[in-house]
Every structure is written in structure tokens, then in C-alpha cells.
């Protein structure tokens, strides 16, 4: 009951945000929060729930972005057409790289995904069809509404909101299905899960493919909004790291963790850059990094985990008070 109440409040807040913070920059900031929340929620499926820390998710992000821009550049189609193509390609790529790499455990899996991401960046940098080092652009002037090239950030905001809602719904459904239980068992102890008969390899692979497909949607949406992708902005490792940090900061393995993380980190980055970036001393990253260090040091479980814990504490306090009152 309480859960539904908070969910309703959260939805109202998200829907109302662009009307309360209505300048174009604030609306865009809101859209970016939702966009990164999509990517981080997608990562959360494999990284949070299954505990397989992929640092190469930018491969799927880039796959979606390149598919969207490629549809326009090579076929003069709406970038929207590229979205499903990128999704299919991402899922296929995830299957191909997932089979060998998901056998690796812990850091070795992370390292393998980094290698794959760097490999993809180098291949694209040298592939003329994908714009090589120059990158691919989207429609400069929108031809029709399907080009998704708007001046206002509002349409992006609600589009991203819808996609995020779908992503979270899929995640929620998954966590409550048999697969979700398997994944949590694998995260806690893969060997124990296997010994109890959980199909670990298959489950991890499915989670990885699902995560990849959703990440590619985020990539495609990113490219549509900014109208451009090149190897660094579409396949740079920093994007993987950013997605990972958002999920970890908000609370990996929690449904709304990535959204909380994005809602803190994206404004922090953009606003600190707006206030300090013009000074030209790289202060932005100092502030940004310091906050991440503080959180990692004092609250490694993520902000949402902290809130949950405080909530639980208050509840037990209240209950014990109640108990004391009853006893007297």
C-alpha cells in the first residue's frame, strides 16, 4: 500500500518536473536524467541483479546510436527506424560475446568487457561506412516529426520517461519471475546456485542480452537528441563508467537505484560544469570526483540503500516504541 503511494508520488514528480523547472536548460537536464536512467537501469539488470559488472556496455550504447544515425546517413530514413535494428544487433552481439565472457568471474569478466569495448571503438574508428573517426550525423533540419529533432526538450523528456517506464516495468517483472530469483542466487554465490540446479550460464546470458537490448535503445535515443555520434562519444569507455557509477551510486540491484543515481549525478555534472567549467581549471571533475569518492567511502551500497536502511531503522524504532507502549 505504502509502496503504491510512493510510486504515485514519484510519477507525479517526474511528470510535473518540466512544468516547475521550465527553462529550456532545466527541461533538457530533466531529459538527460531520464536518458541516463534508462541506460543505468538497463545495466542494472546484468550488473546489479546478476552481479556481473560489465564495463563494456558502451558497445551496446554505441550500437544503438550508430544504428540510428546510420539509418539516416545511409538510407535517408528516420533515425527511429534504426532503433529496432540497433536493438537486434545489440542482442546478437551480446549473445556472441556473452557466451565466452560470462564464463569468467569477478574482475576477469569486467576486464574482458573492457577489451571488447575498446576493440569495437578501434574497429569503428577505422570503418569508413560508420564514418570512421569523423562520426555520423543525424538530420540537421528535421524533415518531419519522425526525425525526432525538436527544439524544445519536452518531447524528449516524455519520450524518455515512457521508455524508462517500460524498462523499469520489464526489470520489475523479471525480478519477480523465476529468472530474477536465479539471478539473485547467482549474485550471492554462483556455485551454490548451480549446485541447487539453477541454470546459471543460460540465465546470465539471457540477462546480458536483455540488458544489451535496452542499453542500445538508450544509445539510439541519445543519438537522436544530439544528432551526432563519433567513436569517442558513442563508444568511449567513459560512458560505460558513467552508467556504472550512476547505478552503483543510486543502488545497484534496486529497481529505482539507477534513477536515483542519475537524478543526482547528471545535474551535479551539468551544473558544476555550468558554474565552474568556464573558469577553465577542470574544477568540475574535482568536485564531481570528490562527491563520488565520499559516497563510495561512506555509503557503498548506494543512496537508495541508505534511504531504505534509515526507513527500516525508523520503522523498528516506532515498532519498539509501540511494543513498549503496549507492554506498559
Amino acid at each position, binding site marked *: 500500500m505504502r509502496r503504491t503511494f510512493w510510486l504515485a508520488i514519484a510519477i507525479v514528480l517526474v511528470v510535473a518536473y518540466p512544468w516547475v523547472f521550465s*527553462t529550456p*536548460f532545466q527541461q*533538457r537536464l530533466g531529459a538527460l536524467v531520464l536518458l541516463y536512467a534508462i541506460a543505468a537501469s538497463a545495466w542494472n539488470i546484468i550488473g546489479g541483479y546478476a552481479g556481473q559488472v560489465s564495463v563494456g556496455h558502451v558497445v551496446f550504447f554505441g550500437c544503438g546510436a550508430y544504428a540510428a544515425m546510420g539509418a539516416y546517413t545511409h538510407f535517408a530514413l528516420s533515425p527511429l527506424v534504426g532503433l529496432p535494428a540497433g536493438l537486434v544487433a545489440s542482442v546478437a552481439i551480446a549473445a556472441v560475446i556473452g557466451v565466452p565472457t560470462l564464463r569468467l568471474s569477478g574482475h576477469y569478466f569486467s576486464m574482458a568487457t573492457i577489451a571488447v569495448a575498446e576493440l569495437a571503438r578501434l574497429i569503428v574508428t577505422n570503418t569508413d561506412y560508420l564514418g570512421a573517426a569523423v*562520426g555520423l550525423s543525424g538530420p540537421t533540419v528535421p524533415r518531419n516529426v519522425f526525425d525526432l529533432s525538436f527544439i524544445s526538450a519536452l518531447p524528449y523528456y516524455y519520450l524518455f520517461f515512457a521508455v524508462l517506464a517500460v524498462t523499469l516495468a520489464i526489470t520489475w517483472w523479471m525480478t519477480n519471475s523465476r529468472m530474477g530469483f536465479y539471478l539473485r542466487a547467482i549474485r550471492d554465490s554462483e556455485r551454490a546456485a548451480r549446485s541447487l540446479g539453477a541454470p546459471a550460464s543460460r540465465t546470465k546470458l539471457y540477462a546480458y542480452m536483455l540488458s544489451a537490448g535496452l542499453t542500445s535503445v538508450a544509445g539510439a535515443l541519445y543519438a537522436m537528441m544530439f544528432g*551526432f555520434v*563519433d567513436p569517442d*562519444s558513442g563508444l568511449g569507455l567513459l560512458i560505460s563508467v558513467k552508467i556504472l557509477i550512476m547505478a552503483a551510486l543510486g543502488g545497484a540491484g534496486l529497481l529505482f537505484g539507477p534513477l536515483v543515481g542519475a537524478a543526482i549525478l547528471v545535474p551535479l555534472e551539468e551544473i558544476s560544469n555550468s558554474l565552474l*567549467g568556464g573558469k577553465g581549471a577542470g574544477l568540475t571533475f574535482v568536485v564531481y570526483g570528490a562527491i563520488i569518492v565520499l559516497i563510495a567511502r561512506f555509503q557503498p551500497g548506494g543512496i537508495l540503500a541508505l534511504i531504505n536502511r534509515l526507513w527500516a531503522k525508523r520503522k523498528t524504532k516506532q515498532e519498539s516504541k509501540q511494543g513498549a507502549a503496549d507492554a506498559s
Partner: protein
Amino acid sequence: MRLSKLVGPLAAAAIAMGLASGAMAQQKTVKIGAVFPLSGNAASAGVHAKAAIEVALDIINNAHPEFGNFPLAKNAGLAGLGGAKVEVVFADNQGSPATGQNQALRLITEEKVVALTGAYQSGITLTASAIAEKYGIPFVNGESVASNLTERGFKWFFRTTPIATDFAQVYYDFFTEMKASGAKTDNIAVVHDTTEYGVSVANTLAATFKEKGHPIAQDVAYTTNATDVQSQVLQLKDKKPDVVIMISYTSDAILFAKTMQALDYKPPMLLADDSGYSDPSFIKAAGKISQGVFNRSSWSVGPAGSPTAIIAKLYKEKSGDEMDDTAARQMQAFFVLADAIDRAGSTEPAKIQAALKATDLKPEQLMIGYKGVKFDDKGQNILASGLIIQLQDGENYVAVFPKANAEKPPVMPYKGW
């Protein structure tokens, strides 16, 4: 007790009044946004660009009679707007096309800038100018050379810098003149890295020279940030080209210079395409073993007392470094924009756009070696061009071509060390 309670509100009132008067005074300032990489990989370039624009602001906003007839220098502020001062709001693009676009949007909608300049990396100029186009705000770029930037049908984008095709033409003219004076320039090799810059310039050179019936004989590619270029140098040593054109970033340029010395290879003529060879750190590390290398630049200091010499001095005071070609091109773009606002006599974007379209600056009105500034329908400066400079007697480049701008005659052959 009473008084101390009053102090707070009084102070607040005083601050509020101060802010209000500040806001009133703002009507006399023209705000321009500048998006540059002030952090990240290209931070050095961005910080130098910022210094260059701050020097330009000093020249525009304060009276500088020593500049003679140089536009905007003589009186304080913009005469066309009743002496209004120009203010620049800098923003950091962090080397990311997304951040560049976000910051451009913020400058337009929050800071209410009337025009934009930037953004160094071609990819970021592309996304930042796209948002300016949507909002109808003029964007003047002085340094991004990707050819597609002016092929987008934009109405608010203007570019003052020469691009690869212009340089190819300068090189061709230079070779033709050197040939007339007895040097051999028939067999040309191009050495380049595989970055966007290296590949696009190499392709443009190949296309231009082929068109002139003088195809490039050899194409030698290497991966940027190389650790070893012996095989490339040996390849050149084996083929003995008359001219070697180098398209390299700084660390690779230094490595090539050292490897050439180690393998004792000196091409008769070595021509560098700006970039690494213009970097002050290249000249410090490998200047003494690269004597006689030709390079391109649109910037030259010029005779003492000339506007360019004064600018060079001001820039050195501001940044601590010598003025380089990139910073100079950015500064020129900013002057072009300020001049257009001055002529428009208005801060209305549409009037500034019209003034930019009507821009017709002559060489003597510029601080850089272009033949002038005049934009075509696509927003490209059709009078952009460059000089050939040569590293002679130590660590300074001197202009050697074209004759009109030459400080000294070119020295052949390449001396090396």
C-alpha cells in the same frame, strides 16, 4: 541590539541595489558565448583559445590607439552600439559533443548570449552549432576544419578558417614556385596518422594534387601515438621522394624527427601540415634537429609595432606562451563576430546574421594572413588562406611564402640537425 538586527536586512538591501544597478548597466554590454574544451584531452588548446579571446576583449573594450586603423581597437567598446562593452561567457565542452551542445543551449537560453563562438573539435562544433541553428543564434567558428560543417545548409553558421582544400592549394602553389626556382618537387610522399585529421587531410591532398595532374606518389600511414616509426622512415629512405609532407600530432612529430636523425634520413624538402610541428613543445624537443622544415600557418608576428606584433606581445603576457596558429585563428573569428555586431549596431540575432553575411574585411583589417574575410552562401570564408613558414636558424618560424608576406626567402634543401 535593535541596530544589529537591522544590519542584516540593510546589507541585503544594499546588495540587492548593487545587483539592480548591475542589471541596469548590463544593457550596455553585449554578451557572447564561447564553448571550448577547457578540460579533457584538448584542454591545452581550449585554455589558449580562452586567453586569445581575453586579449581580443581587452583590445575591443579599451582604447588602443597604438593599433592605428585596426577595426574596433581605437575607441573603448563597440562604436556601433554607443560604446557598449563586450562580455564573453566561457563554457567547458569537456571534449564531449553532448556537453558542448548542452552548454551552447545554456549560453543561449540562460545567459542570453547574442552569438556563439567555438568549439575547437569538429564534432563538438557540429552539435553546438546545431542548437544555435535551431534557436537562430549566429555561430562563428574560427578553427574547426571538417569540411562537412559548412555542407549542412545552415543559415546561422559562419566559418573563417581555411580548410584542407585551401591548404592543398597553398602547398601546390608553393611547390610550383619552388620548382620554378630549381628545386625538385615531382615525387611527393604523404605521411599521416589514422585519426580524422590525418586521414581527411591526406585524402584532400591526394584529391587536389591528382586534379592538378600531379598525383601523390606515396601514402605512408601510421597509428597515432606511435611507439616506433622506423619502418615508415625506412620506407621513405628507400623510395627517396623529393618532398615529404608530414601530417602528425606533437608526440608523433617528435618521434619522427628523432627517428630520422637516428637513421640518418633527410628528405630534400620536408613540409609539415601545422598541428604537431607548430606546437611549442615540438620546437623545444626537436626544433634543433628539424632545421629547415617548412610548415603552414595563417599567423605570423610581423614587423615590430604592427598590430600583429602588439597582439603577440599581449597574448604572451596573458598566457605565458607564444601565439600559435590555432589561437590566432580563433581570435580572428572572434574579431570578425565583434565587427559584425558593431556594424549591425544591434544585438538582435537576425541583424548580426545579416551583418555577418555582408562581412567584407580586407587583409589589412585582419590580424592573420588571410586574403580577407567574406562568406559564401554556406558560411565558409572564401578568402581564407595560409602562409608557408620555415624553421630557420634556431627555434623560430619565419614566413617564406607567398612573397608578399615573406620575411625571408626559403632555404633549401632541408638541413635537419
